[in-house]
Each structure stands twice: as C-alpha cells, then as structure tokens.
C-alpha cells in the first residue's frame, strides 16, 4: 500500500492520460456512428455491408490494429497517442453503429407515422422523435463501449503509449504487485465512474425512461412468473 501513497501523483497523471485516451474515441465514435447507424438502418443493402465491415474490424485484435493502421496510412508513428485514439475510435464505431441501427429498429412504426402525420419532415423527425426514442438502446451500447474502451486503452503501453497500462509493464519489470494492482483497480474504478455518469446523463436527457420503466418491468416479471408456474 505504501507504494500507492508514495506514487499518488503518478497514478493521478496516468489517470488523466487514460481519460483523454478513452473519452476522445468515445465522443468521436458516437458522433460518427449516429449518421452511419441511420444510413445502415435506412438502407438494407448498406446495412449488411456496414455490419460486415464493422464485424471484421471488431475481429482484429487491438495490438494488431495498433500496428496495421499506422503502417498502412503512414500518418503517424506507433508511439503517437493519435494511434491509440484512432484504433479505439474504430472499435467504438464498430459497436455503436449497430446500437444506433438496433435502436432505430426498436422505435414503434406507429409513432413514426404519427409524427409524419403531425408534419415532421424526415430530418426533424429523426432528431426530435426517432433518435430520442432509440436513446435507451443507444445508451446501452454506449455503456458497453465505454467499459471496453477504458480497459482496452491499457494495451497502448505495448507500443509505447503511456496511460494506466504503464503501471502493468513497469510493475512487472520491477516486480511490485501493489503497482499492478493499483493499475487494475484504477481502470475498473474509472470504468465504473464513467458508466455511472452515462446512466445519469441518460436520466437527464431521457426523463421518460424512468417514468415508464417501473410499470413495464413489473409487467414483464409477471409474465416470467406466470410462465414458470
């Protein structure tokens, strides 16, 4: 434990680096995924293409992506923090595009027709009706993305990008167990805090989900009980 107290400034600094390496991909990934998810949802042909391509990107292990993207583009070196941010953004898009199009799928077609009948154009209907109603599914995807991005960012240390992953490699080289443990705990705590913030943000932006969830949960539980009896 003394190691942790003696090195709090180091852990704090690495945590800030880690936040930067994981929140930027999350934000960029979300902004890109909303229009891409809409296109994938709207056009069936594009959908299968988008799902296939993102599925393939998803499949490639992170360490390989951290090497192949800079080698193929030549825009930056392995060591550049942009490298990690781009790789994590690719993974974020791979998860979020599916969440957005699944979310749009979950919108009741009746509501879509009602809003059209009330005079909403396609653009305004998307932002005012469809995206908010797709919100809960998108939020679920965003939470998965946040947790996996934060834990995945540690792999950056293998190509020389310093964040909380530094505590793992440095701890192994110096054989300091508390250092490695501190790194694991810091990553998990960071992921939980961001998850909590996302849930709070969801309640703030989608207050109706709280009002309607309670009765619907009771109803679905009744169904389960009924089926079991």
């Amino acid at each position, binding site marked *: 434990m003394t190691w942790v107290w003696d090195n709090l400034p180091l852990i704090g600094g690495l945590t800030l680096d880690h936040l930067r390496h994981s929140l930027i991909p999350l934000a960029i990934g979300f902004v890109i995924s909303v229009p891409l998810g809409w296109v994938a949802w709207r056009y069936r042909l594009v959908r299968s293409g988008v799902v296939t391509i993102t599925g393939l990107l998803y499949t490639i292990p992170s*360490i390989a992506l951290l090497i192949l993207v800079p080698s193929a583009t030549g825009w930056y070196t392995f060591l550049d923090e942009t490298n990690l941010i781009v790789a994590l953004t690719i993974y974020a898009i791979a998860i979020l595009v599916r969440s957005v199009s699944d979310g749009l799928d979950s919108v009741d077609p009746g509501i879509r027709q009602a809003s059209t009948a009330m005079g909403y154009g396609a653009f305004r209907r998307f932002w005012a009706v469809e995206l908010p109603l797709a919100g809960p599914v998108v939020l679920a995807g965003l939470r998965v993305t946040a947790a996996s991005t934060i834990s995945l960012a540690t792999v950056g240390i293998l190509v020389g990008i310093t964040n909380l992953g530094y505590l793992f490699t440095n701890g192994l080289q110096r054989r300091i167990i508390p250092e*490695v443990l501190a790194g694991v705990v810091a990553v998990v705590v960071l992921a939980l805090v961001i998850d909590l913030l996302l849930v709070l943000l969801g309640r703030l932006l989608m207050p109706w989900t709280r009002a309607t969830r309670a009765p619907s949960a009771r109803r679905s539980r009744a169904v389960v009980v009924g089926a079991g009896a």
Partner: protein
Amino acid sequence: MSYFADAIAWILAGDTGLMDPIWLATVQQLLYTAAGVLIAAVVAVPIGWYIGHTGRGREVAVAVSGAARAVPSFGLLILLTLVLGVLHKPEAAVITFVVLAIPSILAGAYTGFEAIDRRVIDAGRSMGMTERQILWRIEVPLGLPLLVGGLRAATLQVVATVTISAYIGLGGLGQYIISGLQLRQVNVIIAGALLVAVLALVLDGLFAVVQHAVVARGVRAAAVASPLSSRASRRRRGRVEAAGVPTPS
C-alpha cells in the same frame, strides 16, 4: 506499402531467427486459445443454461459480466503472473483467458434460452414433456446458435489476449510483435500483426459457418415459409443481443 511487402517477404522466407517458427507459434496460439475457451465453457454453459431455464440469478450474471468487462485483461495477466510466481506463467495466462471468456459464453447460453418463444416451451409442456426433455429437446437445440455466438465472441477476445501474453514470454504469434518492437524491426512487427489478424478472421469465419449450421431444421424451414415475420423477429433479436454484445479486445 513497402512495409507490408517486407513483412510478407519475411513470413514467406520463414527464417524467424531466435524466435519460434511460424507454425509452432500458430499451434501455441491455438492451444492456449482452446484451453481458455474450453475451460470457460465447462464452467459457464451449465450456469448459463440454469439461468436461462429457471430465470433465476439473471441480475447477478448481468452485473458480474458487466463488471468483468471493465477489468483490463492485460493487467489481470500481469497481476496473476506476479502473484503466482514466474514459474507458473502458463497457469496465470490460462486463468486470465478463462475469466475473460466466461461472460460472453454465459450471456450466449442464457440469452439463447431467453430468445425462445415461450409458446414453444408451453407447447412442449402441454404435450407432456418432462423438464429434462424440455431442456434437452427444446431449449438446448433452439438456444444453440446464440451459444455458438457467445463462444465466437469469447474465442476472439481470448485469441487477442493470447497475442498480448507474448509480453510475459508465453510464445504464440504475439512474440513477433513484442520482439519486433524491442528490436525495432518494423517488418517483423507488421508480419506478426498480419498473422494475428488473419488467424482471428479465419476463426471468426469458421464460427460463422458453425453458427449457421446449428440453426435447427424446423426454425430454418419456418424462416423460409414466413418472411413477413422477419422484421418483428429482427427487433426481438436486437433486444436479446444487446445483453450479449461482444467487446473488442
């Protein structure tokens, strides 16, 4: 792009110097992956089926899986290596892979059961099937595609983490990346990354074929017979899959 040509030339030349030859590294990579996924399946499939069949313990499983997702597997690997001692690296690595693989397989097992139309199970019960018959003749066959999906996600996560395990000297295809980075040999680094990416894509493709093959004959016939229901079932599927979303690794 000449980097890639150099890397491919290095792979084809087959002279890996002090490192293991490519075929051996591939075998190591596959054995570690198989060990992790199989042990995890032995643990997670019965638990997942129990949760799916009884509906009990679902909240706990979701909470544990969510928390496990946040644990950095690279950190866990190094922590276990230090705790168990350097002599027990393989054990530390396999434990890490098992911990990593369990949530995806568990989710695949219970969402597979949950996705089954309740009326099918009720029909089985009303025909006089025992609980055991319902489990083995209705739930297991119908839940198989989603279970294979869980195994697929777990395998991809583990294969990526086996790559990273080369950092603690475990061998596998990651050794070319790790050694290449230390020796600053760009062609070797890229060669390693290409081999890992290709292996992952091949495994993913094999699982896609298996996932398609295990769809029950009756379900496939029904899907062909009534294409109109596809939209509704897609919506339901989207909801079910959200629970078992695989994560990149």
